């Protein structure tokens, strides 16, 4: 029984394909494993913060005016009479089943609170990163292609200011200038008071919800309120993204293949964008991912300044009320999103770069 060469070739191709699938599968499994492990580390840290550091975690939850019965009941309910590893196990099980406890200050479950506040943060951070990318990347490219020019100097100053200016201060100055003096933008909050509650939340993103409801007026009001806090966040991501883009581009422009492109007679615009910029798109994705995750963190400060009803504001309010379940819950969510974005951009790097495939 002789095999004809065509089927042999087909078999070989199929073998290679299944090997590739297996390799992909392993890569995915490895990715899930590292994410889970890091997430477990995060849980260990929040567990440590919530249950081990406080001298009396029960007191932190029930408050110091609780009666002895309430105190004992809470202690048993929290499982504090059990050894630490068992407590940690219960904690992990609870978190994975979506139970982050009750918030003392709002009286609702922390999960419910977080899902209510998260969209506001997401909306602001997303507009912020869009500003940062749309302005930061081209500015970084221009600064690198005209090294030493005025644009280059400006980018350097902006980059340094991004490292040394407190975000909450810039927000306050922005409010004083653009809201109080110039009246160009709306004040604190997501909407003017008389528009509040008029739009039915669908996605929780006001820009989307108001358009879905056909309320153009509310949409514009939301835009005027969003533009300042998002720009402040955008400034910091712009500073970081432009600085990194500039440094990547300088690296590329000194490469020999850029000279090759010039030898071929390729116009300078294409030399810069096609030859120098294309190779850095992949590392830039990582930078943008990091910056986006950083904005979630930065929004804590900005939301406090702008009374923005997002997760950051929820966290700071909880901090001041010593509402530990809410604090740990928001830390967990922000941390998890942060880790997830970090790891995703890591994976994208490996998938998109032809050299790493």
């Amino acid at each position: 029984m002789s095999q004809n060469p065509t089927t042999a070739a087909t078999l070989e191709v199929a073998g290679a394909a299944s090997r590739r699938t297996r390799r992909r599968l392993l890569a995915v499994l490895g990715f899930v494993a590292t994410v889970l492990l890091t997430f477990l580390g995060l849980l260990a840290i929040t567990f440590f913060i919530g249950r081990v550091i406080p001298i009396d975690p029960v007191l932190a939850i029930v408050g110091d005016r609780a009666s002895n019965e309430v105190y004992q009941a809470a202690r048993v309910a929290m499982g504090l009479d059990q050894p630490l590893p068992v407590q940690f196990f219960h904690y992990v099980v609870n978190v994975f089943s979506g139970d982050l406890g009750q918030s003392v200050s709002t009286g609702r479950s922390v999960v419910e609170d977080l899902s209510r506040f998260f969209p506001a943060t997401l909306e602001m951070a997303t507009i912020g990163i869009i500003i940062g990318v749309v302005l930061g990347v081209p500015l970084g490219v221009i600064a690198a292609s005209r090294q030493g020019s005025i644009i280059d100097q400006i980018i350097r100053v902006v980059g340094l200011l991004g490292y040394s200016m407190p975000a909450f201060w810039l927000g306050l100055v922005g409010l004083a200038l653009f809201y109080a003096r110039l009246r160009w933008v709306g004040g604190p909050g997501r909407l003017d008071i008389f528009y509040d509650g008029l739009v039915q939340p669908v996605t929780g993103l006001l820009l989307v919800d108001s358009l879905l409801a056909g309320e153009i007026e509310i949409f514009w009001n939301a835009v005027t309120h969003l533009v300042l806090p998002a720009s402040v966040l955008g400034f910091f991501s712009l500073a970081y993204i432009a600085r990194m883009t500039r440094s990547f581009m300088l690296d590329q422009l000194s490469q020999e293949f850029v000279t090759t492109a010039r030898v071929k007679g390729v116009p300078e615009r294409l030399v810069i964008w096609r030859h120098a910029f294309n190779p850095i798109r992949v590392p830039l994705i990582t930078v943008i991912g990091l910056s986006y995750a950083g904005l979630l963190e930065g929004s804590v400060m900005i939301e406090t300044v702008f009374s923005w009803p997002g997760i950051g504001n929820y966290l700071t309010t909880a901090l001041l009320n010593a509402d530990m379940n809410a604090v740990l819950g928001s830390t967990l969510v922000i941390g998890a999103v942060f880790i997830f974005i970090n790891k995703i951009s890591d994976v994208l790097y490996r998938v998109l770069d032809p050299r790493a495939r």
Partner: protein
Amino acid sequence: MSTRDWLLEDSPHSRLQANAGRAYRVFTALLRNPLSVLGGLIILILVLTALLAPWLAPYSSTGQDLANRLAPPSGAHWMGTDELGRDIFSRVIWGSQITLTIVGLVALISAPLGLLLGAVAGYFGGWTDRVLMGITDIFLSMPKLILALAFVAALGPGINNAIIAIAITSWPAYARIARAETLTIRNSEFIAAVQMQGASPLRVIVGHVLPLCTSSMIIRVTLDMAGVILTAAGLGFIGLGAQPPLPEWGAMISRGRTFILDQWWVATMPGFAIIIVSLGFCFLGDGLRDVLDPKSEGK
């Protein structure tokens, strides 16, 4: 032989001369970079202001003058007064002591801690390395500010706890650097020589590995100080850092929030102090990196 010749001698006769000569070369190289000179000056001024605050500040940091509250900047009050009539300029000057304390203590706690953990991980390798670096990576992949906030929430508000929280969140970066450096040093001949003389691992790490990590550590710590100042100010702003009536810059901005729409100077002025000092550390860190680590110049 002049002092300069002694410093620049090609073959120094003692360890002291070699170290002094290296310090002198770094110093002169820094002087050639205008921005690092500026950074150094800013930090020098910060230190002097902190030391001489009692003589420099025209008013006390807590003295109230309710008749003169929320006065705009003028000849008598260069930065105006706050809601209790306290002179903002004087409070900014006194605040430099707090900033310097925070920066100094965070550096003193986190850098040696990171250095030691990184060096131990790199030197011993194997499971020690895997466990220590696993913990480091988990810390590194988490948002620093949020983590510091959560730690302060558990420890309780206050400047000491703020310092501890910031230090806890900043050592992992140093551990990574120290590990990387140790890995390159570990297999060199001179370490083998020391080991063959019977030196204990502790002696090798402390006496021979750590000193070689210091220059990259100094660069990183200096650059990080801007971030430390911002985090500390942020904690103060939220109300978890230094408590009133301490004239901490972030807390001062927080007090001025209420008046931002009309009395802009209350919140704005301390912010300038934060920016200038942070910029100072950035400039000096950049300069140090160019001098001590020429590979990464211009990045």
